[in-house]
């Protein structure tokens, strides 16, 4: 057995044995190498380094949830994680393709209304105008509208969304859960609108 494979096998044993430091060492040893392989395979399909790192992270987290599914005698842990991450990368690329189609459809409709869309900035602004024309289909409450405004501004901070929801006094973990729920709800409505239009 190669030195690396033996190293990964020992790390896997520590993980199964309940060593709380094993997950961290797994990330240190394997996250970037797995991401590198995935990036190399899918970069021409539009996958970024960050995307590759995220799918590598998710593959490791999935493994930590069910370590018994990995059989060391069949393959190295590295190969196993690459296979999982490749699958996630492919799903990500496919889903992005669908989102781009929906967005392009919104922009086409805006152009048909007479708006000039000769650069990306105009495309985004026209898409926003279209969204506001259908605001009642996307948002039901003032809270929904505040969340949509933040999303259109490209806001990433949980704290900003928490203030909009009025939950800034809750524990951070609950804030994150509630913010994600509301964002997911708005995103689903946007997708349905795009598909319908």
């Amino acid at each position, binding site marked *: 057995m190669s030195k690396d494979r033996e190293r990964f096998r020992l790390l896997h044993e520590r993980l199964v044995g309940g060593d709380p430091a094993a997950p961290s060492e797994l990330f240190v040893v394997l996250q970037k190498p797995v991401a590198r392989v995935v990036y190399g395979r899918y970069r021409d399909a539009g996958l970024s380094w960050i995307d590759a790192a995220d799918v590598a992270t998710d593959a490791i987290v999935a493994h930590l949830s069910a370590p018994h599914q990995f059989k060391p005698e069949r393959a190295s842990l590295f190969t196993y994680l690459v296979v999982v991450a490749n699958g996630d990368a492919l799903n990500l690329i496919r889903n992005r393709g669908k989102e781009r189609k929906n967005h392009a459809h919104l922009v086409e409709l805006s152009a048909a209304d007479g708006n000039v869309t000769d650069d990306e900035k105009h495309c985004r602004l026209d898409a926003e105008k279209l969204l506001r024309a259908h605001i009642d289909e996307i948002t039901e409450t003032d809270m929904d509208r505040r969340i949509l405004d933040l999303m259109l501004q490209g806001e990433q901070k949980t704290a900003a969304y928490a203030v909009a929801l009025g939950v800034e006094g809750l524990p*951070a973990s609950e804030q994150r859960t509630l913010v994600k729920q509301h964002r997911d709800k708005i995103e689903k409505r946007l997708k349905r609108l795009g598909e319908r239009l």
Partner: protein
Amino acid sequence: MTPTPSKADLLERAAARVALDRRFLASLMADWTGGDLDFARLAYELRCDPGCVTRLALCFRPRQDPAGFRADVARIAASVSISEACLTAFLREAEALAAFRKPASAGGALLAAARDRVEREPDKN
């Protein structure tokens, strides 16, 4: 050509990504800093470099029973090269803070128990 991100940056991103997962120390550390992981602030508090903070965040939480907690903290401290005493103090503070921030019903029961204890104390006079 897109520059390759550093390993440190990718690990930091992984730590932020798992901060919602209660199994990881990242979730407790994010709670302590009030939301998103603040690596610089945690490095100052734990008296270590930001790289240590990242590796710490990617560890699982220690067990809750006293013997398991001590054993797990020792393993984590050795793995990420951080003072065991410093880590123990931080984890106890972070867990206490998290418990204190729990919903009002749990906190109300805690306060009621405290009042009962005071009422039962013997008269010293």
